[in-house]
Protein backbone atom coordinates (compact mmCIF):
# COMPACT_ATOMS: atom_id res chain seq x y z
CA UNK A 1 0.00 0.00 0.00
CA UNK A 2 1.37 3.41 -0.92
CA UNK A 3 2.00 5.73 2.00
CA UNK A 4 1.36 9.40 1.26
CA UNK A 5 2.79 12.53 2.84
CA UNK A 6 -0.28 13.04 5.02
CA UNK A 7 0.13 9.55 6.51
CA UNK A 8 3.82 10.20 7.15
CA UNK A 9 2.88 13.45 8.94
CA UNK A 10 0.38 11.56 11.10
CA UNK A 11 2.76 8.69 11.90
CA UNK A 12 5.59 11.12 12.73
CA UNK A 13 3.22 12.85 15.14
CA UNK A 14 2.30 9.52 16.75
CA UNK A 15 5.99 8.62 17.00
CA UNK A 16 6.80 12.08 18.46
CA UNK A 17 9.52 12.75 15.89
CA UNK A 18 9.70 16.24 14.39
CA UNK A 19 9.63 15.77 10.62
CA UNK A 20 10.17 18.89 8.50
CA UNK A 21 7.41 19.37 5.90
CA UNK A 22 9.84 19.23 2.97
CA UNK A 23 11.03 15.73 3.99
CA UNK A 24 7.56 14.14 4.00
CA UNK A 25 7.38 13.27 0.30
CA UNK A 26 10.79 11.59 0.23
CA UNK A 27 10.10 9.62 3.37
CA UNK A 28 6.68 8.59 2.01
CA UNK A 29 8.39 7.13 -1.07
CA UNK A 30 10.96 5.31 1.07
CA UNK A 31 8.38 3.84 3.45
CA UNK A 32 6.11 2.87 0.54
CA UNK A 33 9.01 0.96 -1.00
CA UNK A 34 9.61 -0.96 2.22
CA UNK A 35 5.91 -1.62 2.84
CA UNK A 36 5.31 -2.87 -0.70
CA UNK A 37 8.17 -5.37 -0.21
CA UNK A 38 6.48 -6.44 3.05
CA UNK A 39 3.13 -6.98 1.24
CA UNK A 40 4.36 -10.42 0.08
CA UNK A 41 3.29 -11.70 3.51
CA UNK A 42 -0.24 -11.75 2.13
CA UNK A 43 0.76 -14.80 0.06
CA UNK A 44 0.99 -16.87 3.28
CA UNK A 45 -2.12 -18.73 4.38
CA UNK A 46 -2.40 -17.97 8.09
CA UNK A 47 -6.01 -19.06 8.64
CA UNK A 48 -6.35 -20.58 12.08
CA UNK A 49 -2.69 -19.90 12.97
CA UNK A 50 -2.06 -18.68 16.52
CA UNK A 51 0.06 -15.52 16.52
CA UNK A 52 3.51 -16.14 18.01
CA UNK A 53 3.88 -13.62 20.80
CA UNK A 54 6.90 -15.07 22.58
CA UNK A 55 10.07 -16.88 21.56
CA UNK A 56 10.14 -19.05 24.67
CA UNK A 57 7.80 -21.86 25.66
CA UNK A 58 7.30 -20.94 29.28
CA UNK A 59 4.72 -19.18 31.42
CA UNK A 60 5.58 -15.72 32.70
CA UNK A 61 7.33 -16.19 36.05
CA UNK A 62 5.75 -14.72 39.18
CA UNK A 63 7.67 -13.00 41.95
CA UNK A 64 6.80 -11.53 45.31
CA UNK A 65 5.53 -7.97 45.07
CA UNK A 66 8.27 -6.43 47.18
CA UNK A 67 10.78 -3.63 46.73
CA UNK A 68 14.15 -5.09 45.77
CA UNK A 69 16.16 -1.95 45.09
CA UNK A 70 15.60 1.76 45.41
CA UNK A 71 15.77 4.66 47.81
CA UNK A 72 18.69 6.30 46.04
CA UNK A 73 17.48 9.47 44.31
CA UNK A 74 21.02 10.52 43.36
CA UNK A 75 21.49 7.37 41.30
CA UNK A 76 18.06 7.76 39.69
CA UNK A 77 18.70 11.39 38.81
CA UNK A 78 22.36 11.06 37.81
CA UNK A 79 21.64 11.17 34.05
CA UNK A 80 18.82 13.74 34.20
CA UNK A 81 19.03 16.50 31.57
CA UNK A 82 17.69 18.90 34.24
CA UNK A 83 17.15 18.39 37.96
CA UNK A 84 16.19 20.49 40.95
CA UNK A 85 16.83 18.87 44.30
CA UNK A 86 15.46 15.36 44.12
CA UNK A 87 13.19 16.09 41.15
CA UNK A 88 13.35 15.89 37.37
CA UNK A 89 12.61 19.27 35.77
CA UNK A 90 10.29 18.90 32.77
CA UNK A 91 8.35 21.32 30.57
CA UNK A 92 4.95 22.42 31.86
CA UNK A 93 2.50 19.51 31.41
CA UNK A 94 -0.78 21.11 32.54
CA UNK A 95 -1.77 24.53 31.19
Amino acid sequence: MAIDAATVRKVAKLARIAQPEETLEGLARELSGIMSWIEQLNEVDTDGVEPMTSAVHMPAPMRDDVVTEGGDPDLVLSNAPKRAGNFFVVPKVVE
Partner: protein
Amino acid sequence: MSALTSLTLKAALDGLTAKAFSSVEITQAHVEAVEAARALNAFVLETPEKAIEMAKASDARRASGSAGPLDGAPLGIKDLFCTKGVRSTAGSKIIGDFKPTYESTVTANLWRDGAVMLGKLNMDEFAMGSSNETSAWGPVVNPWRTRGGNAQLTPGGSSGGSASAVAAELCLGATATDTGGSIRQPAAFTGTVGVKPTYGRCSRWGVVAFASSLDQAGPMARSVEDAAILLTSMAGHDPKDSTSLDVETPDFASFVGKSVKGLRIGVPKEYRVDDMPAEIDALWEQGIAWLKDAGCEIVEVSLPHTKYALPAYYIVAPAEASSNLARYDGMRYGLRSEGANLTDTYEKSRAAGFGAEVRRRIMIGTYVLSAGYYDAYYLKALKVRRRIADDFDRAFETVDALLTPTAPSAAFSLGDRSDDPVAMYLNDIFTVTVNLAGLPGMSVPAGLDATGLPLGLQLIGRALDEGTLFSLGGALEKAADFRAKPQKWW
Protein backbone atom coordinates in the same frame (compact mmCIF):
# COMPACT_ATOMS: atom_id res chain seq x y z
CA MET B 1 54.11 -7.94 22.77
CA SER B 2 52.24 -8.89 19.59
CA ALA B 3 52.61 -12.58 20.54
CA LEU B 4 50.29 -12.06 23.50
CA THR B 5 47.55 -10.47 21.39
CA SER B 6 47.71 -13.31 18.83
CA LEU B 7 46.81 -15.97 21.40
CA THR B 8 43.41 -17.60 21.49
CA LEU B 9 41.44 -16.96 24.67
CA LYS B 10 42.06 -20.59 25.65
CA ALA B 11 45.82 -20.30 25.14
CA ALA B 12 45.88 -17.01 27.04
CA LEU B 13 44.00 -18.52 29.99
CA ASP B 14 46.41 -21.49 29.96
CA GLY B 15 49.36 -19.08 29.92
CA LEU B 16 47.92 -17.08 32.81
CA THR B 17 47.33 -20.29 34.79
CA ALA B 18 50.89 -21.45 34.10
CA LYS B 19 52.11 -17.97 35.14
CA ALA B 20 53.91 -17.64 31.78
CA PHE B 21 52.75 -14.00 31.84
CA SER B 22 50.57 -11.84 34.06
CA SER B 23 47.20 -10.29 33.36
CA VAL B 24 48.83 -6.85 33.53
CA GLU B 25 51.25 -7.94 30.76
CA ILE B 26 48.63 -9.34 28.42
CA THR B 27 46.25 -6.46 29.17
CA GLN B 28 48.97 -3.87 28.50
CA ALA B 29 49.70 -5.57 25.15
CA HIS B 30 46.04 -5.28 24.21
CA VAL B 31 45.75 -1.67 25.40
CA GLU B 32 48.64 -0.82 23.06
CA ALA B 33 47.03 -2.76 20.19
CA VAL B 34 43.76 -0.85 20.72
CA GLU B 35 45.57 2.51 20.70
CA ALA B 36 47.44 1.59 17.52
CA ALA B 37 44.23 0.55 15.73
CA ARG B 38 42.14 3.72 15.97
CA ALA B 39 41.88 3.76 12.17
CA LEU B 40 39.44 0.84 12.51
CA ASN B 41 37.11 2.92 14.73
CA ALA B 42 36.22 -0.31 16.54
CA PHE B 43 36.21 1.21 20.02
CA VAL B 44 33.95 4.14 20.90
CA LEU B 45 35.46 4.31 24.37
CA GLU B 46 38.83 2.98 25.51
CA THR B 47 39.16 2.31 29.23
CA PRO B 48 42.90 1.60 29.66
CA GLU B 49 43.13 2.70 33.31
CA LYS B 50 40.19 0.54 34.27
CA ALA B 51 41.68 -2.35 32.29
CA ILE B 52 45.02 -2.18 34.09
CA GLU B 53 43.28 -1.81 37.46
CA MET B 54 41.13 -4.89 36.73
CA ALA B 55 44.24 -6.76 35.52
CA LYS B 56 46.11 -5.96 38.76
CA ALA B 57 43.16 -7.22 40.78
CA SER B 58 43.14 -10.38 38.65
CA ASP B 59 46.84 -11.00 39.22
CA ALA B 60 46.24 -10.60 42.97
CA ARG B 61 43.40 -13.14 42.83
CA ARG B 62 45.55 -15.58 40.92
CA ALA B 63 48.39 -15.16 43.44
CA SER B 64 45.97 -15.97 46.25
CA GLY B 65 44.65 -19.03 44.41
CA SER B 66 41.11 -17.74 43.80
CA ALA B 67 41.17 -17.18 40.02
CA GLY B 68 37.90 -17.54 38.06
CA PRO B 69 37.41 -19.24 34.67
CA LEU B 70 38.17 -16.03 32.70
CA ASP B 71 40.58 -14.49 35.15
CA GLY B 72 42.84 -11.87 33.62
CA ALA B 73 41.52 -12.13 30.04
CA PRO B 74 41.05 -8.72 28.35
CA LEU B 75 37.74 -8.45 26.44
CA GLY B 76 35.83 -5.84 24.46
CA ILE B 77 32.21 -4.99 25.28
CA LYS B 78 29.63 -3.97 22.69
CA ASP B 79 28.31 -0.52 23.58
CA LEU B 80 24.77 -1.93 23.86
CA PHE B 81 25.69 -3.42 27.27
CA CYS B 82 25.28 -1.07 30.21
CA THR B 83 28.50 -0.84 32.20
CA LYS B 84 28.37 0.83 35.59
CA GLY B 85 29.95 4.27 35.58
CA VAL B 86 31.26 3.76 32.03
CA ARG B 87 29.56 5.61 29.16
CA SER B 88 27.17 3.33 27.27
CA THR B 89 25.67 4.89 24.14
CA ALA B 90 24.15 2.07 22.04
CA GLY B 91 25.74 3.87 19.09
CA SER B 92 23.30 6.74 19.46
CA LYS B 93 23.53 10.46 20.09
CA ILE B 94 20.30 10.33 22.08
CA ILE B 95 22.15 8.62 24.95
CA GLY B 96 25.57 9.87 23.84
CA ASP B 97 26.55 10.90 27.41
CA PHE B 98 24.69 8.15 29.29
CA LYS B 99 26.58 6.68 32.24
CA PRO B 100 24.63 3.73 33.66
CA THR B 101 24.41 3.39 37.42
CA TYR B 102 24.12 -0.38 37.06
CA GLU B 103 25.86 -3.24 35.29
CA SER B 104 24.21 -5.55 32.71
CA THR B 105 23.89 -9.13 33.93
CA VAL B 106 25.98 -10.52 31.06
CA THR B 107 28.93 -8.20 31.74
CA ALA B 108 28.54 -8.70 35.51
CA ASN B 109 28.88 -12.46 34.87
CA LEU B 110 32.10 -11.85 32.91
CA TRP B 111 33.60 -9.71 35.71
CA ARG B 112 32.48 -12.31 38.29
CA ASP B 113 34.59 -14.82 36.34
CA GLY B 114 37.58 -12.48 36.33
CA ALA B 115 37.54 -10.91 32.85
CA VAL B 116 39.13 -7.51 32.17
CA MET B 117 37.36 -4.73 30.21
CA LEU B 118 39.37 -2.93 27.51
CA GLY B 119 36.55 -0.60 26.49
CA LYS B 120 33.26 -0.24 24.63
CA LEU B 121 32.83 -1.36 21.03
CA ASN B 122 31.21 0.54 18.18
CA MET B 123 27.93 -0.69 16.67
CA ASP B 124 25.03 0.32 14.48
CA GLU B 125 22.72 2.75 16.29
CA PHE B 126 20.50 0.72 18.66
CA ALA B 127 21.79 -2.37 16.79
CA MET B 128 19.77 -1.39 13.71
CA GLY B 129 21.98 -2.02 10.72
CA SER B 130 24.02 -4.59 8.83
CA SER B 131 27.10 -2.54 7.96
CA ASN B 132 27.88 -0.41 11.04
CA GLU B 133 27.16 2.71 8.98
CA THR B 134 24.25 3.81 11.18
CA SER B 135 26.50 4.37 14.22
CA ALA B 136 26.46 7.95 15.49
CA TRP B 137 30.23 7.56 15.95
CA GLY B 138 30.98 6.69 12.32
CA PRO B 139 31.38 3.26 10.70
CA VAL B 140 33.80 0.61 11.88
CA VAL B 141 36.30 -0.48 9.23
CA ASN B 142 36.91 -4.16 8.55
CA PRO B 143 40.58 -5.13 9.11
CA TRP B 144 40.25 -7.35 6.01
CA ARG B 145 40.85 -5.92 2.54
CA THR B 146 40.61 -7.58 -0.81
CA ARG B 147 43.91 -8.96 -2.02
CA GLY B 148 45.88 -6.01 -3.35
CA GLY B 149 42.95 -3.63 -2.79
CA ASN B 150 42.70 -0.73 -0.39
CA ALA B 151 38.95 -0.03 -0.36
CA GLN B 152 37.49 0.26 3.13
CA LEU B 153 35.11 -2.61 3.75
CA THR B 154 32.30 -3.00 6.26
CA PRO B 155 32.85 -5.44 9.12
CA GLY B 156 29.10 -6.10 8.97
CA GLY B 157 26.61 -5.11 11.60
CA SER B 158 25.33 -4.44 14.03
CA SER B 159 28.20 -5.91 16.11
CA GLY B 160 30.81 -4.50 13.70
CA GLY B 161 33.07 -3.14 16.44
CA SER B 162 33.11 -6.52 18.19
CA ALA B 163 33.90 -8.33 14.92
CA SER B 164 36.61 -5.91 13.84
CA ALA B 165 38.28 -5.85 17.28
CA VAL B 166 38.36 -9.65 17.52
CA ALA B 167 39.63 -10.10 13.93
CA ALA B 168 42.32 -7.42 14.35
CA GLU B 169 43.51 -9.01 17.63
CA LEU B 170 42.60 -6.01 19.77
CA CYS B 171 40.89 -8.24 22.36
CA LEU B 172 40.75 -11.97 23.14
CA GLY B 173 36.99 -12.00 22.62
CA ALA B 174 34.00 -9.70 22.72
CA THR B 175 30.38 -9.52 23.70
CA ALA B 176 27.87 -8.91 20.94
CA THR B 177 24.11 -9.09 20.38
CA ASP B 178 21.99 -10.56 17.62
CA THR B 179 18.43 -9.49 16.76
CA GLY B 180 18.37 -10.53 13.09
CA GLY B 181 21.94 -11.64 12.40
CA SER B 182 24.03 -9.00 14.18
CA ILE B 183 26.52 -11.53 15.61
CA ARG B 184 26.66 -14.08 12.81
CA GLN B 185 26.86 -11.79 9.74
CA PRO B 186 29.78 -9.70 11.15
CA ALA B 187 31.50 -12.96 12.19
CA ALA B 188 31.24 -14.18 8.59
CA PHE B 189 32.55 -10.84 7.24
CA THR B 190 35.63 -10.88 9.50
CA GLY B 191 36.65 -14.54 9.66
CA THR B 192 35.62 -14.89 13.30
CA VAL B 193 33.29 -17.19 15.24
CA GLY B 194 29.97 -15.78 16.40
CA VAL B 195 27.29 -17.49 18.46
CA LYS B 196 23.69 -16.40 18.88
CA PRO B 197 22.38 -18.57 21.72
CA THR B 198 18.83 -19.81 22.27
CA TYR B 199 16.47 -16.96 23.17
CA GLY B 200 16.49 -16.75 26.97
CA ARG B 201 19.95 -18.32 27.44
CA CYS B 202 21.62 -14.96 28.23
CA SER B 203 19.89 -12.32 30.33
CA ARG B 204 18.74 -9.21 28.48
CA TRP B 205 18.86 -7.19 31.70
CA GLY B 206 20.97 -4.08 31.21
CA VAL B 207 21.24 -4.61 27.45
CA VAL B 208 19.71 -1.63 25.67
CA ALA B 209 16.53 -3.00 24.08
CA PHE B 210 15.93 -3.05 20.31
CA ALA B 211 13.30 -5.79 19.69
CA SER B 212 12.80 -7.62 22.97
CA SER B 213 11.35 -10.88 21.58
CA LEU B 214 14.35 -11.26 19.24
CA ASP B 215 17.36 -9.70 21.05
CA GLN B 216 19.92 -12.13 22.39
CA ALA B 217 23.49 -11.63 23.62
CA GLY B 218 26.33 -13.89 22.55
CA PRO B 219 30.10 -14.08 22.11
CA MET B 220 32.46 -13.33 19.22
CA ALA B 221 35.87 -14.99 19.29
CA ARG B 222 38.73 -16.37 17.20
CA SER B 223 37.93 -20.04 17.77
CA VAL B 224 34.88 -22.21 18.44
CA GLU B 225 36.35 -23.22 21.80
CA ASP B 226 36.89 -19.57 22.79
CA ALA B 227 33.27 -18.77 21.95
CA ALA B 228 32.18 -21.74 24.08
CA ILE B 229 34.27 -20.55 27.05
CA LEU B 230 32.80 -17.06 26.80
CA LEU B 231 29.19 -18.24 26.46
CA THR B 232 29.56 -20.48 29.51
CA SER B 233 30.34 -17.36 31.56
CA MET B 234 27.80 -15.05 29.89
CA ALA B 235 24.79 -17.38 30.15
CA GLY B 236 22.65 -18.25 33.14
CA HIS B 237 19.25 -17.67 34.68
CA ASP B 238 18.51 -14.13 35.83
CA PRO B 239 15.32 -13.31 37.76
CA LYS B 240 15.67 -9.69 36.52
CA ASP B 241 14.79 -10.80 32.96
CA SER B 242 11.38 -12.47 32.89
CA THR B 243 12.26 -14.28 29.63
CA SER B 244 15.52 -15.66 31.03
CA LEU B 245 15.35 -19.47 31.02
CA ASP B 246 15.75 -21.23 34.35
CA VAL B 247 18.02 -23.97 33.03
CA GLU B 248 21.52 -25.21 33.84
CA THR B 249 24.38 -23.73 31.83
CA PRO B 250 26.53 -26.62 30.59
CA ASP B 251 30.28 -26.34 30.17
CA PHE B 252 30.01 -25.54 26.46
CA ALA B 253 33.74 -26.02 25.85
CA SER B 254 33.37 -29.69 26.77
CA PHE B 255 31.36 -30.18 23.55
CA VAL B 256 34.15 -28.89 21.29
CA GLY B 257 36.14 -31.79 19.86
CA LYS B 258 33.40 -34.34 20.52
CA SER B 259 32.67 -36.74 17.66
CA VAL B 260 29.81 -35.72 15.38
CA LYS B 261 29.56 -39.19 13.88
CA GLY B 262 25.97 -40.23 13.22
CA LEU B 263 24.48 -36.76 13.58
CA ARG B 264 21.85 -35.94 10.97
CA ILE B 265 22.41 -32.57 9.30
CA GLY B 266 19.63 -30.85 7.40
CA VAL B 267 20.31 -28.77 4.30
CA PRO B 268 17.31 -26.51 3.71
CA LYS B 269 16.56 -26.30 -0.01
CA GLU B 270 14.90 -22.88 0.32
CA TYR B 271 18.26 -21.34 1.25
CA ARG B 272 19.43 -21.88 -2.33
CA VAL B 273 18.34 -18.40 -3.30
CA ASP B 274 18.26 -17.35 -6.95
CA ASP B 275 21.11 -14.87 -7.14
CA MET B 276 23.42 -16.61 -4.70
CA PRO B 277 27.07 -16.08 -5.67
CA ALA B 278 28.65 -19.30 -6.95
CA GLU B 279 31.41 -19.07 -4.37
CA ILE B 280 28.94 -19.12 -1.49
CA ASP B 281 27.18 -22.10 -3.02
CA ALA B 282 30.51 -23.88 -3.47
CA LEU B 283 31.48 -23.18 0.14
CA TRP B 284 28.19 -24.61 1.30
CA GLU B 285 28.85 -27.80 -0.73
CA GLN B 286 32.31 -27.94 0.80
CA GLY B 287 30.80 -27.66 4.29
CA ILE B 288 28.41 -30.50 3.50
CA ALA B 289 31.35 -32.63 2.34
CA TRP B 290 33.35 -31.83 5.50
CA LEU B 291 30.50 -32.89 7.77
CA LYS B 292 29.98 -36.06 5.69
CA ASP B 293 33.67 -36.88 6.12
CA ALA B 294 33.24 -36.38 9.87
CA GLY B 295 30.55 -39.05 9.85
CA CYS B 296 27.38 -36.95 9.63
CA GLU B 297 24.41 -37.98 7.57
CA ILE B 298 23.19 -35.22 5.24
CA VAL B 299 19.44 -34.83 4.67
CA GLU B 300 17.65 -32.33 2.44
CA VAL B 301 14.91 -30.57 4.41
CA SER B 302 12.29 -27.99 3.54
CA LEU B 303 11.61 -24.76 5.43
CA PRO B 304 8.83 -23.54 3.12
CA HIS B 305 8.26 -20.14 4.76
CA THR B 306 11.89 -19.01 4.62
CA LYS B 307 11.31 -16.23 2.07
CA TYR B 308 8.73 -14.62 4.34
CA ALA B 309 11.08 -14.35 7.31
CA LEU B 310 12.63 -11.01 6.36
CA PRO B 311 9.35 -9.18 5.63
CA ALA B 312 7.87 -10.62 8.86
CA TYR B 313 10.97 -9.47 10.73
CA TYR B 314 10.64 -5.96 9.27
CA ILE B 315 7.23 -5.71 10.92
CA VAL B 316 7.95 -7.43 14.24
CA ALA B 317 11.31 -5.78 14.94
CA PRO B 318 10.30 -2.17 14.09
CA ALA B 319 7.02 -2.61 16.01
CA GLU B 320 8.88 -3.68 19.13
CA ALA B 321 11.51 -1.00 18.55
CA SER B 322 8.94 1.79 18.23
CA SER B 323 7.56 0.71 21.60
CA ASN B 324 10.98 0.22 23.28
CA LEU B 325 12.41 3.46 21.96
CA ALA B 326 9.43 5.49 23.18
CA ARG B 327 11.39 5.80 26.46
CA TYR B 328 13.83 8.24 24.85
CA ASP B 329 11.82 11.37 25.48
CA GLY B 330 14.51 13.65 26.89
CA MET B 331 12.94 13.86 30.33
CA ARG B 332 14.76 11.52 32.72
CA TYR B 333 17.99 10.88 30.83
CA GLY B 334 19.44 11.40 27.39
CA LEU B 335 19.42 14.27 24.99
CA ARG B 336 16.84 17.04 25.45
CA SER B 337 16.21 19.68 22.81
CA GLU B 338 13.96 22.35 24.34
CA GLY B 339 10.80 23.19 22.41
CA ALA B 340 7.81 25.51 22.86
CA ASN B 341 5.92 22.97 24.97
CA LEU B 342 6.13 19.36 26.18
CA THR B 343 5.15 17.68 22.89
CA ASP B 344 7.42 19.97 20.93
CA THR B 345 10.29 19.08 23.27
CA TYR B 346 9.64 15.36 22.76
CA GLU B 347 9.55 15.76 18.99
CA LYS B 348 12.65 17.96 18.78
CA SER B 349 14.66 15.75 21.16
CA ARG B 350 13.84 12.59 19.23
CA ALA B 351 14.47 14.19 15.83
CA ALA B 352 17.85 15.48 17.02
CA GLY B 353 18.87 12.33 18.89
CA PHE B 354 17.93 9.49 16.52
CA GLY B 355 19.71 8.83 13.22
CA ALA B 356 17.94 8.27 9.89
CA GLU B 357 17.69 4.46 10.05
CA VAL B 358 16.38 4.46 13.62
CA ARG B 359 13.80 7.13 12.73
CA ARG B 360 12.78 5.08 9.67
CA ARG B 361 12.26 1.93 11.75
CA ILE B 362 10.35 3.77 14.48
CA MET B 363 8.10 5.17 11.74
CA ILE B 364 7.48 1.70 10.25
CA GLY B 365 6.80 0.28 13.70
CA THR B 366 4.42 3.08 14.61
CA TYR B 367 2.63 2.68 11.27
CA VAL B 368 2.11 -1.10 11.54
CA LEU B 369 0.84 -0.75 15.11
CA SER B 370 -1.47 2.20 14.38
CA ALA B 371 -5.25 1.92 14.42
CA GLY B 372 -6.56 0.17 11.31
CA TYR B 373 -3.24 -1.49 10.38
CA TYR B 374 -2.51 -3.61 13.44
CA ASP B 375 -4.35 -6.74 12.21
CA ALA B 376 -3.24 -6.41 8.60
CA TYR B 377 0.45 -6.05 9.42
CA TYR B 378 1.47 -6.80 12.98
CA LEU B 379 -0.90 -9.69 13.69
CA LYS B 380 -0.26 -11.12 10.22
CA ALA B 381 3.50 -11.02 10.86
CA LEU B 382 3.10 -12.81 14.21
CA LYS B 383 1.17 -15.57 12.44
CA VAL B 384 3.81 -15.89 9.74
CA ARG B 385 6.40 -16.00 12.53
CA ARG B 386 4.56 -19.02 13.95
CA ARG B 387 4.65 -20.68 10.51
CA ILE B 388 8.43 -20.13 10.37
CA ALA B 389 8.93 -21.60 13.86
CA ASP B 390 6.71 -24.58 12.90
CA ASP B 391 8.91 -25.20 9.83
CA PHE B 392 11.93 -25.59 12.12
CA ASP B 393 10.03 -27.83 14.57
CA ARG B 394 9.16 -30.15 11.70
CA ALA B 395 12.72 -30.18 10.38
CA PHE B 396 14.13 -30.99 13.82
CA GLU B 397 11.93 -34.08 13.98
CA THR B 398 14.30 -35.66 11.47
CA VAL B 399 17.62 -33.79 11.84
CA ASP B 400 19.90 -32.70 14.70
CA ALA B 401 21.11 -29.43 13.16
CA LEU B 402 21.02 -27.42 9.94
CA LEU B 403 23.91 -26.18 7.78
CA THR B 404 23.56 -23.03 5.66
CA PRO B 405 25.72 -20.15 4.46
CA THR B 406 25.81 -17.27 6.99
CA ALA B 407 25.47 -14.35 4.58
CA PRO B 408 24.69 -14.00 0.86
CA SER B 409 27.99 -12.21 0.12
CA ALA B 410 31.41 -11.42 1.53
CA ALA B 411 32.08 -8.01 3.14
CA PHE B 412 31.18 -5.12 0.83
CA SER B 413 32.59 -1.61 0.58
CA LEU B 414 31.41 1.01 3.05
CA GLY B 415 28.81 3.14 1.29
CA ASP B 416 27.89 0.45 -1.24
CA ARG B 417 24.38 -0.33 0.00
CA SER B 418 23.51 2.57 2.25
CA ASP B 419 21.08 4.14 -0.25
CA ASP B 420 18.69 1.22 -0.49
CA PRO B 421 17.19 0.02 2.80
CA VAL B 422 15.70 -3.19 1.35
CA ALA B 423 19.02 -4.21 -0.28
CA MET B 424 20.67 -3.69 3.11
CA TYR B 425 18.00 -5.75 4.87
CA LEU B 426 18.66 -8.69 2.49
CA ASN B 427 22.04 -9.21 4.22
CA ASP B 428 20.15 -11.01 6.97
CA ILE B 429 18.26 -13.40 4.70
CA PHE B 430 19.95 -16.54 6.12
CA THR B 431 20.20 -15.42 9.74
CA VAL B 432 16.88 -13.79 10.59
CA THR B 433 14.79 -16.99 10.64
CA VAL B 434 16.73 -18.18 13.68
CA ASN B 435 15.80 -15.08 15.70
CA LEU B 436 12.14 -15.38 14.78
CA ALA B 437 12.11 -19.00 15.99
CA GLY B 438 14.26 -18.29 19.09
CA LEU B 439 16.85 -20.94 18.10
CA PRO B 440 20.63 -21.02 18.55
CA GLY B 441 22.87 -20.29 15.56
CA MET B 442 26.61 -20.10 15.00
CA SER B 443 28.83 -18.74 12.23
CA VAL B 444 32.18 -20.45 11.64
CA PRO B 445 34.82 -19.08 9.24
CA ALA B 446 35.16 -21.62 6.44
CA GLY B 447 37.18 -20.15 3.61
CA LEU B 448 38.18 -17.16 1.50
CA ASP B 449 36.50 -15.92 -1.66
CA ALA B 450 38.41 -15.25 -4.88
CA THR B 451 39.34 -11.74 -3.69
CA GLY B 452 40.71 -13.03 -0.38
CA LEU B 453 37.79 -12.11 1.89
CA PRO B 454 36.49 -14.51 4.55
CA LEU B 455 33.20 -16.41 4.21
CA GLY B 456 31.25 -18.17 6.94
CA LEU B 457 29.01 -21.18 7.33
CA GLN B 458 26.05 -21.17 9.70
CA LEU B 459 24.89 -23.98 11.96
CA ILE B 460 21.37 -23.86 13.41
CA GLY B 461 20.35 -26.06 16.34
CA ARG B 462 17.36 -27.06 18.41
CA ALA B 463 16.41 -24.76 21.26
CA LEU B 464 18.92 -25.14 24.13
CA ASP B 465 21.07 -27.49 22.06
CA GLU B 466 24.10 -25.20 21.70
CA GLY B 467 26.21 -28.19 22.75
CA THR B 468 25.63 -29.96 19.44
CA LEU B 469 26.43 -26.72 17.59
CA PHE B 470 29.75 -26.44 19.43
CA SER B 471 30.62 -30.05 18.47
CA LEU B 472 29.67 -29.42 14.82
CA GLY B 473 31.37 -26.01 14.82
CA GLY B 474 34.51 -27.66 16.13
CA ALA B 475 34.33 -30.26 13.35
CA LEU B 476 33.89 -27.59 10.66
CA GLU B 477 36.72 -25.51 12.13
CA LYS B 478 39.04 -28.51 12.10
CA ALA B 479 38.16 -29.45 8.53
CA ALA B 480 38.32 -25.88 7.20
CA ASP B 481 41.61 -25.24 9.02
CA PHE B 482 40.98 -21.54 8.56
CA ARG B 483 44.23 -19.78 9.46
CA ALA B 484 44.08 -16.69 7.25
CA LYS B 485 44.46 -13.36 9.03
CA PRO B 486 43.94 -9.83 7.78
CA GLN B 487 47.16 -8.17 6.59
CA LYS B 488 47.91 -5.39 9.07
CA TRP B 489 47.49 -1.97 7.39
CA TRP B 490 46.16 0.06 10.34
